[in-house]
C-alpha cells in the first residue's frame, strides 16, 4: 500500500485515468449498443477495435508518414488525424458489419440459443485476431509519434497535456454525437424501438435487419475512433491488442449498466479512474486486478450496473 504516492499524485492519476477511461468508454459503446438491442455479448468487438488500429497505421504509411518522419506541422497533424479517423471508422465499421452478416445473422434466422451466439462470437474473435497475427508475423508494429505531449494546463500541480485533453474532447464529442443520433433521429428511434420490442417494431414497419446492421456499424465506428486515440496515446499495436482492452471495455459497459449509452461513458471513466488509483496504491502490476474487483464489487450491490439498462426502457 502506498497511500502517500496516491495522495501526492492524485491529480496526475486522475487525468491519466480519465484519458484511459475515455477510450474504454468509446469501445464500451459498441458492446452496449449490440447488447441493448440483441442481448448478445459481442465478444469479437475487441477485434473490431484492433482492425481500427491497423487501419490507421495503414493509412499513415500510405500517406508517407512513418516512424522516421519528423514532427509534422499543425496542419499536417490535423490532416493525418482526420484521415486516420475516417479510415479506422470505415475499416472497423465494415468489420463489424461483416461479422453481423456472416456470423450472427444465420444464427438469428435459426433462432439459436444465447450460448451459441457467444461461442460464435468467440470463434469470430479468434479468427480475426489470428488472421491479423499471421499477416503481421505476430510482431508489434510501432507507430510514429503524431502529437508530442506538451503541458497545456496545470491544475493544482497536475499537468494536463494537449494529448490527454484532445483524447478526452474527441471521445466526448463522439459520445455526444452518438447520443444525439440515437435519441433525436428517425433511425435512432428505430434502434430504440427494436431494443424495446423487436416483434412489435417489426409490425410497425421497422426493418429489423437494417437496424441491427446499423448498430453494429455504429459500434464499429466508435471503436475505430477509439483505435486512433489509442494509437496516438500508446504508439504501437499488435494483433492481440484488443483482448485486454475489450474485456475492460466490456466491464465498463456492465459497470455502467449494459444497454445504456450514458452508462457506458460513466462505466468507462470509472474503470479508468479506479484502475489508475489502484495502480497508484498497490503498484502497476495490480492495475487489472483492481479493475475487476471493483466490477465484481459494484455488481454485488447493483446487479444491473450503476445506471441500469435503459436503451430498452427509453421512451421512443
Amino acid at each position: 500500500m502506498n497511500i502517500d504516492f496516491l495522495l501526492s499524485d492524485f491529480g496526475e492519476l486522475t487525468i491519466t485515468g480519465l484519458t484511459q477511461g475515455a477510450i474504454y468508454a468509446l469501445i464500451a459503446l459498441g458492446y452496449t449498443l449490440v447488447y441493448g438491442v440483441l442481448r448478445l455479448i459481442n465478444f469479437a468487438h475487441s477485434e473490431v477495435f484492433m482492425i481500427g488500429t491497423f487501419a490507421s497505421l495503414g493509412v499513415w504509411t500510405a500517406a508517407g508518414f512513418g516512424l522516421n518522419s519528423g514532427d509534422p506541422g499543425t496542419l499536417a497533424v490535423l490532416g493525418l488525424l482526420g484521415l486516420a479517423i475516417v479510415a479506422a471508422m470505415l475499416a472497423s465499421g465494415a468489420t463489424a458489419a461483416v461479422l453481423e452478416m456472416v456470423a450472427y445473422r444465420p444464427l438469428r434466422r435459426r433462432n439459436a440459443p444465447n450460448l451459441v451466439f457467444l461461442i460464435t462470437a468467440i470463434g469470430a474473435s479468434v479468427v480475426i485476431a489470428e488472421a491479423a497475427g499471421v499477416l503481421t508475423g505476430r510482431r508489434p508494429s510501432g507507430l510514429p509519434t503524431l502529437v508530442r505531449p506538451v503541458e497545456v494546463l496545470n491544475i493544482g500541480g497536475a499537468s494536463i497535456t494537449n494529448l490527454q485533453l484532445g483524447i478526452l474532447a474527441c471521445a466526448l464529442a463522439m459520445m455526444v454525437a452518438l447520443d444525439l443520433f440515437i435519441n433525436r433521429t428517425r433511425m435512432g428511434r428505430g434502434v430504440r424501438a427494436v431494443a424495446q420490442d423487436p416483434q412489435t417494431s417489426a409490425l410497425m414497419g421497422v426493418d429489423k435487419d437494417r437496424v441491427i446492421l446499423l448498430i453494429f456499424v455504429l459500434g464499429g465506428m466508435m471503436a475505430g475512433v477509439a483505435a486512433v486515440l489509442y494509437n496516438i496515446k500508446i504508439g504501437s499495436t499488435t494483433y492481440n491488442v484488443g483482448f485486454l482492452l475489450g474485456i475492460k471495455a466490456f466491464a465498463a459497459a456492465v459497470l455502467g449498466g449494459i444497454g445504456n449509452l450514458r452508462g457506458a461513458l460513466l462505466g468507462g471513466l470509472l474503470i479508468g479512474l479506479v484502475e489508475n488509483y489502484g495502480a497508484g496504491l498497490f503498484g502497476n502490476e495490480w492495475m487489472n486486478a483492481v479493475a475487476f474487483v471493483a466490477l465484481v464489487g459494484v455488481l454485488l450491490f447493483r446487479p444491473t450496473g450503476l445506471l441500469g439498462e435503459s436503451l430498452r426502457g427509453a421512451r421512443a
Partner: protein
Amino acid sequence: MMDALRAADGRRLAALAAMRERWRALPKPMRFAVVVALVALLYGLPNLNIPLIRTPDTDFTSVLFLVAIYVLVAVGLNVVIGLAGLLDLGYIGFYAVGAYTVAIFASPSSVVATKLPWLACIPLAIGIAMLSGVILGWPTLRLRGDYLAIVTLGFGEIVRLIAVNWDVPNGQRGISGIPGPPGTWADGSPLFGLIDVRPFYWLALTVVIVCMLAVGRLEHSRVGRSWLAIREDEDAAEVMGVNTFKFKLWAFAIGAALGGLSGALFASKQAFINSDSFDLLTSILFVAAVVLGGSGNMAGVTVGAILISYLPERFRGFADYRLLVFGIALVAIMVFRPQGLIPSRRRAVELKDKREEAVVV
C-alpha cells in the same frame, strides 16, 4: 454447396441415432463386453503403435495425458454450463487453484514450509477449489446469466494476475519440483517419473472414468433434474419448489472441484507450473470444448474435449495457423449445428421445437 453439407450432416446424425438404437438393442452382456474392450483399448493406447493417430512432433503419451485432462475439465465444466446452464468463462481459475495448491503445499521449492505428501494434496486441492467456487458463487449466482459470464471472466483473470504478481506462486519463474504420486515399479524406480509418462496417463484415465460415472449418476438424480429445470427456466423451477440458488451453488462447487482435480493432476505430471499455463484463452477453449461437442451430453463434451486438445497437437506442423483454423471451425460448426456435434437427445428435440416456433429477433 451449403445444402450438400447440410444433407451430409443430416446423414451423419441419422447414422448416430441408428447406432444409439442398435446399442440399446444389444443384450446386456454384449454391451458390457464392448465397454470392457473399449476401456482396455484406452488403457493400451500408449503401447499400441497405431500409425495415423500418433503425434509426429510431441510425445504421444503426453498428448494422451493432456487429452485426458481436457476431458476431465470438460466433464466438470459440463456440470456448470451444460446441466445447470450457468455460463462460466473463468473456469481456468479453478484449474489454476488446484494446480497451485499441489505446487505450493507439496513442492520443496515453494516458500510455504509444509511439505505435504501428494496423497494429502489432492483432497486439499479439490477442497480449496470447491471453496473458491462457493466463495465466487455465493455472491455472483444471484446475478443474471450475462453478468455471471463477465464476473467469472474477471475471476479467471484475477487468479492469473495473483499467480503472476504474488511471491508465493512466483509468477513466470513458477514452482518446480512438484512431486508426483507415490509408488515404485518392481525394480524400485519411481512409478510416476518424468521419463515414462504412461502411469500418469493411466492415472488420469482412471480418474476420468470414475468422475464420468459419478457425474452420470448425479445427472439422473434429483440434483441433476433440478439443474435441468434451472437451465430450462429458472423462474418456473423456483415456482415448482426447486431451491435454485442452492442447486446453482452445488453445480458451481462440483464443477470447481473437478476443475481443481484436473489442475492438480496437470501440475503433478508437469512437475513445474508457472503463470503462463493459465491464460484466459485456455479458459475460453474449455468452454468451446463443451459447446462444440454438444453441451449437456457427456459423450458430446468428451468428443469436444478430445478435438480441442488433440487436433492442435496432431497438426503441430501448422503451428502458426492452428488457432486460425480452430476459430473458423468454431464459427462454422456453430452456424451449421448450434446444438453441437453430438447433441444430447433432449437438447436436439428442444431445438427442433424451437425452429418450428415463429422466429423472434
